[in-house]
């Protein structure tokens, strides 16, 4: 049984600006038998994409393959000439990139780009190729397979583009397809459809594949073999079942731990009913305010929420849900068009410019992308000293001392104060971000996707830090994320946003088992589980139709809901229903009906919490 791919002793180096050579990956050896899927897993900087590209003997600018052999069947790619290499790429080996949006030429029609490989390699006539492409579109469950090819890339959604890229890779019937983090940029609810399409196509056609990812749960669904990478070297390698259930390497164990967030005990909700933040009827958007009071581009409608002292509220939503807008509106960075925001009985003006310095101090925002949230021209110490001087009028000595205290709070060494912030790692930058927010001594910190751009291991550490800070300082948090697993690990209360409306609200316990709002149900069930076969069990989620987020007063989830009631859901706006377990949902169905429907049709999710009642399985 010959292996299709065999990599031996691979070493890739990079030449930096200063002409110094740096090894990116070394001692890489693995082989892939025909028809199997091998996963390359690791965090950013581990070298997984570099290795994936090397399988086509391609290295990015400034890098080159220094040593090693890459065998495709019996041919060593390192021995091939450039023309031979070109004839191989796109024909025998294909690549599906991470970002479909930037991998398509914006000024060429999609069909032409998909057929390009056939033109380069003269493999078939245009007519035959087009027919084959349309066929592939159908197999990949793309809408309008006959006509989608005549569109331009910007006219098609992200999830569809990703599948189109897969079609582009498959049109020449390659022997090996390399999937490079293809679903990382997609929403969880879109991801599941794409994953399913990929898996089906790979299995049906017996394609050999390499799947690069940082997400263990996704890898568990797709791969037969797993290679774990850290810092350019292989830590561990083996069959998927073994890696997941019995990892032997420490780093692998770390990755597994990060994928299974442990739910610590809920902070005892002091029956002190006083809420710190209360938001009623909030609406916000962009553009001019029209005559009916709504902005030209409405994002949020009628949002009500409250956060108690010393507790954490999670806000979950996918792209387009308006969750970031919510943070901006509460902070006053984006003036709301309607509604009231109260901070401990004091009404906050909707515009930042109208708020007092004290009001601004009490609500702080921490942004997602730490790279752009810290001024590259300033040192860490200077960044932290400014709010101290601005809000508390601290002079140099007091300020220096406090800066050291703040760094200590976020577990950073005091020596970092003199460093320009460009030298810090992603995790360190996010800690500085937090420290800056803490410097103001706020009552409430709004965290907007603060861990989404970080590697899972680093992100877990940041989440632990947040919990610690809450315990020690009693600050309230609003934690915004698209990842429900993270939220459940950190938050006491959770609200779910869809298309600018709140659809569900409940405590952490409520999200362990149905009943949920139908959207919440879809969300929870789309998060890949860290066990093989999960994806296969999800066959019966109804195919989602592109959402029309124009819900207005009607339920925003109308178009995608698999349990909607014709004649009711599309005519009347849903009431707020309190469910018996304590949560509230915006739905026409009653709690019992939802429970019945959701337990019947789908396996209930078990997020393997430290303490909770697991249903069924």
């Amino acid at each position, binding site marked *: 049984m010959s292996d299709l791919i065999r990599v031996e002793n691979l070493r890739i180096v990079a030449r930096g600006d*200063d002409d110094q050579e740096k090894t990116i990956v070394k001692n890489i050896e693995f082989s892939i038998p025909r028809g199997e899927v091998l996963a390359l897993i690791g965090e950013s900087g581990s070298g997984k994409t570099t290795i994936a590209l090397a399988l086509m003997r391609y290295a990015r600018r400034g890098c080159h393959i220094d040593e090693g052999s890459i065998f495709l069947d019996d041919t060593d790619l390192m021995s091939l000439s450039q023309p031979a290499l070109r004839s191989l790429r796109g024909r025998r080996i294909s690549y599906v990139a991470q970002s479909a949006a930037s991998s398509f030429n914006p000024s060429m029609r999609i069909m032409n780009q998909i057929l390009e490989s056939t033109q380069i390699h003269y493999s078939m006539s245009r007519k035959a190729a087009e027919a084959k492409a349309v066929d592939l579109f159908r197999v990949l469950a793309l809408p309008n397979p006959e006509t989608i090819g005549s569109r331009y890339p910007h006219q098609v959604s992200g999830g569809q583009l990703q599948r189109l890229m897969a079609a582009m890779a498959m049109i020449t019937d390659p022997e090996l397809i390399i999937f490079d983090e293809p679903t990382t940029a997609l929403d969880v609810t879109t991801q599941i459809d794409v994953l399913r399409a990929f898996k089906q196509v790979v299995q049906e056609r017996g394609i050999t594949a390499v799947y690069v990812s940082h997400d263990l749960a996704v890898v568990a669904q797709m791969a037969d073999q797993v290679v774990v990478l850290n810092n350019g070297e292989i830590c561990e390698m083996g069959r998927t079942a073994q890696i997941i259930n019995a990892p032997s390497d420490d780093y692998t164990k770390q990755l597994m731990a990060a994928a299974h967030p442990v739910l610590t005990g809920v902070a005892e909700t002091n029956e002190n009913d006083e809420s710190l933040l209360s938001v009623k009827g909030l609406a916000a958007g962009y553009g001019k305010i029209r005559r009916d009071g709504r902005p030209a581009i409405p994002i949020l409608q009628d949002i009500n929420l409250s956060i108690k002292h010393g507790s954490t509220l999670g806000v979950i939503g996918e792209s387009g849900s308006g969750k970031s807008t919510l943070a901006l509106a509460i902070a006053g960075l984006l003036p709301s068009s309607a509604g009231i925001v109260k901070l401990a009985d004091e009404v906050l003006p909707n515009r930042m410019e109208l*708020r007092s310095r004290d009001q*601004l101090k009490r609500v*702080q*925002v921490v*942004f997602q992308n730490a790279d*752009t*949230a810290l*001024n590259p021209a300033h040192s860490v110490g200077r960044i932290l000293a400014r709010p101290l001087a601005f*809000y508390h009028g601290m002079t140099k000595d007091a300020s220096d001392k406090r800066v050291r205290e703040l760094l200590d709070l976020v577990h950073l060494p005091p020596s970092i104060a003199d460093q320009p912030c460009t030298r810090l790692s992603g995790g360190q930058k996010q800690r500085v971000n937090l420290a800056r927010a803490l410097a103001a001594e706020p009552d409430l910190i709004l965290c907007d996707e603060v861990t989404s751009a970080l590697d899972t291991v680093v992100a877990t550490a940041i989440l632990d830090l947040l919990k610690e800070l809450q315990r020690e300082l009693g600050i309230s948090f609003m934690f915004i994320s698209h990842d429900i697993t993270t939220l459940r690990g950190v938050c006491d209360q959770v609200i779910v946003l869809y298309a600018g409306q709140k659809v569900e609200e409940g405590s952490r316990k409520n999200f362990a088992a149905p009943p949920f709002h139908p959207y919440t149900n879809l969300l929870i069930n789309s998060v890949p589980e860290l066990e093989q076969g999960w994806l296969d069990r999800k066959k019966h989620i109804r195919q989602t139709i592109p959402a029309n987020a124009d819900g207005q007063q009607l339920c925003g989830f109308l178009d995608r809901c698999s349990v909607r009631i014709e004649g009711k859901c599309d005519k009347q706006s849903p009431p707020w229903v309190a469910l018996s377990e304590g949560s509230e949902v915006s739905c026409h169905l009653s709690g019992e009906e939802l429970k019945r429907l959701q337990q019947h049709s789908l396996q209930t999710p078990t997020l393997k919490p430290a303490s909770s009642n697991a249903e069924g399985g």
Partner: protein
Amino acid sequence: MKSLYRYLGITGLAGLALTLFWVLVSFVGPLIAPYSPGEIVNYDVFLPMSWEHLLGTDYLGRSVLSRVMDGARFTVGLAFAAALLASLLGTGLGLFSAVSGKALDESISRVMDALLSIPNKIFALVMIAALGSSIPILLLITAITYTPGVFRIARSLAVNINQMDYIQVARARGEGRIYLASVEVLPNMIHPMLTDFGLRFVYVVLLLSSLSFLGLGVQPPNADLGSLVRENMSGLWEGAPAIMAPAAAIISLTIGVNLFIDSLRSSR
């Protein structure tokens, strides 16, 4: 020295050397020139290079070496001052415009766009017709000619920086406009604007020498390098150093600065 070589490369180093050479000449030249620029040293005009007169004589019999050194003073000095003025004005305005409200930003930008729509030489010619060609006026004219270009680049930079999250954070703190512009935005603009300054310098040298060549720039008895080419034009047929030297001076100055700026850009 070695790190400078690594940073700039050989072309960059050559450029730096040329630039510094001419800066030096413009400062020190008049002090070490063998003769005064107006002095007639020999009755033979357009003499070739010799040990006595290193660069020969010009169309009136004056020392070309001395006149070139004097001319360099005008060219380099005026260009530097004008470029500096343009950079300061343009950067200041660009920054101000970017952090101001939409209406103010729009109006300033429109005016600057209009100014940019007038080709540089045409603009300078119109100004000279109205205001004359004295040295201070020339300085003003060349500075104003290039201010809109600097403005556009500075504003574009500032607008991009303004959209960064760290600016949002500062705004959310309640910081005022002046603090934002000077402490948060400006430090991130300095490096690109310095590169731009170098380019403006070259543009001004080109513009000024062209104007002088047309007889509309630096007026007699003063002469910059462009004027020197103009007045010694008849020496072209003999290939006299009187015209070759100032020509070579202009070329080596602009190429030198260009090489230096290019090497700065490619190393970052």
